[in-house]
């Protein structure tokens, strides 16, 4: 039996993983979530702001990370809209513009009282990475004279008197890499003491932990944290329970669980094979 596994073609593992994840998605299995203290911190940071506060939503990711990060961006958008915060969307990634559009579609369909230019604005993308952050913290209109559609910022009520982002009550960054959360901490949150929370991919979460709690109020790491965040949002705003679109990350946790069980099983199996092989070699 062990000899069979020793020479197993890795494509069987791929197929097995595909089947396991596919089965969990097709059966739409869901599990209860218990929000961690970190997730509650992030939630409270937005929730404790007075209604109508100014929030900069920097969505620095592309379609490759959408599966992991869009649920976070959607949850942040819903919570901010519930609190009637003024939203300023911005991205440092060229493919980030359609990602912002997805969040704006939530405002258009679920929060129809939200008016473009009065309650939210889409500043879009500017090339330059951290240089963009450096400029928007000092003189935003030197770089952003107009919004994503070409409308002059002086003609938009929300941005007419906006000099820079230092007066923002909070920066919310959803980032998949560089430029992303780290750069927002380095060039905006730390030097200008602006409160900030971040949502990142699993790979990007560990390097951000040292910034907590002084430079970052909290982070959401990967889909698990996104799922817990959705749960916190549902507990605070129970009317969202009827909105299945507000439970995207929770849906993704079913496949996560079964895939992780399979991974753990394979790691144990791999170790059993390794040690039995070594014992056989020693005995020979």
């Amino acid at each position: 039996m062990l000899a069979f596994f020793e020479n197993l073609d890795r494509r069987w593992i791929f197929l097995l993983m595909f089947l396991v994840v596919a089965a969990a998605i097709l059966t739409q299995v869901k599990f209860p979530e218990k929000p961690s203290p970190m997730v509650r911190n992030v939630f409270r940071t937005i929730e404790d702001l007075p209604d109508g506060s100014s929030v900069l939503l920097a969505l620095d990711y592309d379609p490759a990370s959408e599966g992991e990060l869009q649920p976070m961006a959607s949850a942040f958008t819903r919570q901010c809209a519930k609190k009637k915060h003024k939203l300023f969307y911005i991205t440092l990634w060229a493919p980030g513009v359609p990602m912002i559009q997805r969040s704006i579609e939530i405002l258009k369909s679920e929060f129809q009282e939200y008016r473009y230019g009065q309650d939210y604005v889409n500043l879009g993308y500017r090339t330059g990475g951290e240089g963009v952050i450096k400029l928007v913290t000092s003189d935003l209109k030197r770089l952003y004279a107009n919004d994503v559609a070409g409308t002059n910022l002086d003609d938009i009520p929300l941005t007419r008197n906006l000099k820079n982002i230092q007066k923002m009550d909070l920066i919310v960054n959803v980032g998949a890499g560089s430029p992303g959360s780290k750069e927002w901490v380095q060039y905006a949150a730390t030097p200008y003491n602006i409160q900030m929370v971040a949502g990142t991919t699993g790979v990007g979460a560990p390097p951000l932990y040292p910034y907590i709690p002084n430079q970052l109020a909290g982070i959401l790491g990967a889909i698990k944290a996104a799922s817990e965040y959705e749960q916190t949002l549902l507990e605070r705003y129970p009317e969202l329970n009827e909105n299945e679109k507000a439970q995207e990350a929770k849906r993704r946790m079913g496949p996560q669980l079964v895939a992780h069980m399979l991974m753990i099983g394979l790691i144990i199996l791999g170790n059993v094979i390794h040690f039995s092989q070594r014992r056989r070699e020693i005995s020979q």
Partner: protein
Amino acid sequence: MKQSTIIWTALMVLGGGFLIIRASTVGMGQAYVRLVQVEPEGSTVSWTDRLGVDPKEQNDADVRLSWPRTIGIWVAALCTLSIFSFLYGDNPLYKLAEAVFVGSSAGYAMAVGFWDGMINILFRNLWPELMRTTFIPGIDETQDANLLFLVPLILGLMMLWRLAPVGGWISRWALAFFIGATAGLRLLAYFQSDFVAQIQNTIIPLAVFFGDGSIDFAQSLKNITIVFGIFVCTVYFFFSVEHKGIVGKVSRVGIWFLMITFGAGFGYTVMGRIALLSGRLEFLFDDWLWLIDPVGKRIGL
């Protein structure tokens, strides 16, 4: 016939047959839009916006089948399957999807970069009147040309000079300026956020007390672990002293801390990859094949 050829042929025939039956009976992979007339206040210009709607609203009078979005769903689905096929082995479908991805990404980045960098920043500042009458009507009529932007224009042209057959050295001056400016910018940010602020973050009490004077064991343990972990990891990266004796033992503990960190990182990575896989499969099963309907997009169809 080769075994792989038989497998591929069987998969193609079975998959194609399933798609034909599914599309002709239940329906699949269609996208609908609602036509919304936009008339901004105080403006004589109006246009029609196309907002994506769920297929269950397809019978509404102002809802239409969107061919561009429908084709988009099919292309995305077939490209996803083509990329997945690499897990079996390299093949022409994978190569095609890879080439499409690289080409479209490069084209998109170039178009967006040109529009945002050149039109929206450089040309807008150098020739505001021309840009107002052509590409960006929202530019303020009182805006004058900012001749300071001649500097990045000249530096940009110098950078492009490397493509010329002679005088390639000219590009090095522009490159030197760019590297120097970036290094200065980053040095300052790292010093402030990652050096000074990180030292500040490490100066924490090892014994934490509640308001009533009793000790908060959990927080105290957490703080001790942070300080101890930083100390042993710093010792591991301190190479001015040979790692033997007490230094060797401490640095070995540092390795353990680093290994636990890498393990946590690996776990996060696995979670991220599975999330991406389930995101793609959900797209295939929901938006393309209409096998599941988690958000009730097709109720009543």
